Each structure stands twice: as structure tokens, then as C-alpha cells.
């Protein structure tokens, strides 16, 4: 499972340029995941910067680092669900057709708490997210973890609550119909 980039994309609802994870290093369903993300200067966040900036201004935005961590968390959650469903009923549906991923429910951030950033990362660096499951119940998951690079600790996340919602629900929530 998740042995290549195509498998990773099959699980995630995001698409380039918002895919901020590159490779699943290891996955233990319902327990933990390790995911790598390589920082490259070709990313949109580095476009149109002024000339002559000091090096620190070229740090990968910390908002995107947190999004990358969140996508690693999503891979752990969705990968765990997929593994359970495949084990319970095999790789095919009740009519024998190949089982399709659940694309009708969008995983989203519900809340985040207790993030602390460490060393900045730059083009050429590779960060590794290590995410663990604290709790998974139906359409909600609570996860935590750390992100590191060769230079040290990059990010610590005390708690990330992810939710899955039907697309129709997302469109209708809190809006006049």
C-alpha cells in the first residue's frame, strides 16, 4: 500500500500544486506513518521574490509545513481506513467490481493545538513527518507528531483533529439556501 506516488494520490483529494507530500516511508495502519516531503525552489511559494534577499527569507513557509504535516496525517487516517475495508471485504465490492476509494467525503482540518516550530527549512531540504494516531472514531481522527530534517526538529504538533464531511454538507454548511 502507498508504495508509489500514484498510490499516494489515489488516497488524497488534493492535487498539484497543493500536494505537499512526496513519499510514504512507512505505514502501520491505525498506528503511525512516516512521510517525506522534499522542498524545491520551483514551488509557487518561491515565485516573484525580490532580488537580493537574505537567506532566511527563502525559508519554506511554515503554514505550508503544517499543511504538509496535515496531508501526512490524512494519509495515515485514510490509509488505515482503506486497509481495514480491504481486509474486511477483500479488494472488490459486493458485486465483484474493484473497490473504489471514498471520494465523496472530504477530509479537512477541524482543529489544531500546540504547534511549535523549530529550525527553518529551505529548497534542497527533505523533511520527514512522523504522525501517530491518538484516536480514530468514524468521521473524526485525532493525531499528533513531529517533523524533522537533517538540521533538527522542524515542527511539533500536539494535536490535530481531522474530520470527513460529505461534499454536499460542506457546500450547505452555514449558508442560506
Amino acid at each position, binding site marked *: 500500500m502507498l508504495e508509489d506516488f500514484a498510490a499516494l494520490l489515489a488516497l488524497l483529494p488534493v492535487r498539484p500544486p497543493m500536494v505537499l507530500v512526496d513519499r510514504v516511508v512507512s505505514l502501520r495502519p491505525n498506528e503511525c506513518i512516516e512521510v517525506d516531503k522534499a522542498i524545491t525552489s520551483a514551488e509557487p511559494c518561491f515565485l516573484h521574490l525580490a532580488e537580493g534577499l537574505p537567506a532566511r527569507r527563502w525559508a519554506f513557509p511554515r503554514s505550508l509545513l503544517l499543511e504538509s504535516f*496535515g496531508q501526512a496525517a490524512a494519509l495515515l487516517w485514510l490509509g488505515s481506513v482503506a486497509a481495514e475495508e480491504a481486509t474486511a471485504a477483500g479488494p472488490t465490492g459486493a458485486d465483484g467490481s474493484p473497490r473504489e476509494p471514498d471520494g465523496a467525503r472530504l477530509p479537512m482540518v477541524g482543529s489544531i493545538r500546540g504547534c511549535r516550530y523549530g529550525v527553518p527549512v529551505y529548497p534542497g531540504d527533505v523533511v520527514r513527518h512522523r504522525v501517530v494516531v491518538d484516536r480514530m472514531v468514524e468521521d473524526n481522527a485525532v493525531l499528533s507528531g513531529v517533523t524533522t530534517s537533517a538540521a533538527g526538529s522542524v515542527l511539533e504538533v500536539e494535536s490535530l483533529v481531522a474530520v470527513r464531511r460529505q461534499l454536499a454538507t460542506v457546500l450547505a454548511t452555514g449558508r442560506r439556501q
Partner: protein
Amino acid sequence: MTPPADRTYARPLDACDTVAGRIANRAGQVVAEKTVAVTDPYLSGHFPTLTLYPAVFLLEGVRQSVEYAARDEAQAPFLDIIGVVSLRVLQPMLEGDRLVLTTVVGPGPDEESLRARCTVTRVELEGDPDVVTARLTVDLAPAG
């Protein structure tokens, strides 16, 4: 005020269309507006079938608006995010939504740091109350 066009640090997008307010002596209030647009960087992929403003881009809205408001200071710093105390999404933010980020700034946990407490509201049709879509508390510090 429209934020200046010069880009002096890497950022996923311009997260504020307008900014009003001032930060002085590590305190103040900032009000920024941002309309969610699929033409902004990254948003075409989040998601292909539905443009949903990423919650983490609210962190950018706080960072950029506080930095703009602090620019009048004699030594206006380059501020970076050092911590996210909390971020809670209450409502999805979709294509075309006009968001207002109201941020109250005070001293942060470390020397020279700032703590920014932000409430995000979505501007509704005339006569309807604005809807709170998110609340977040972010720590920022000068980063050189």
C-alpha cells in the same frame, strides 16, 4: 490599505487584500480582508472539484496582516510564525467568500514575540449577520 506588492519572503499566496490597523510596542489591532479566489496559488488543487480555503492560509493571513501593520515602526521586523496555540475551523470557506480577519495583538511568550488572537468572519448578504468561520491564536517573532 492595500498591502505592498513587493515580496520580501516566501509565502504561499497574498493572504490579505486589504489591511487596516497598526502595531506599536507589541500591541494593537489589525483588520484584514481576503476574498477566496481559485486563481490564487495552490487553490486549484484544494480541491479540484471544490475550492476550499485551506485553514493554514489563515495563519498566513495573520502573519502578513500583523507584519504589514508593524511596518511603520522604525525597525519593522520580518515576522515568522513560531507557534500555533490553537486553530479551530467552524465553517468551510469557499470560492467567492469574503473573509474578515480581526486580530488583537499582544506580547507573546518569548522576548520580542507577539501573540495574535484572530477571529475570522464571512461577510454575508445585507441584513444577515456575519458568520464566524474560524478562530486562531498564533505566536510570531522577528526572524531576521
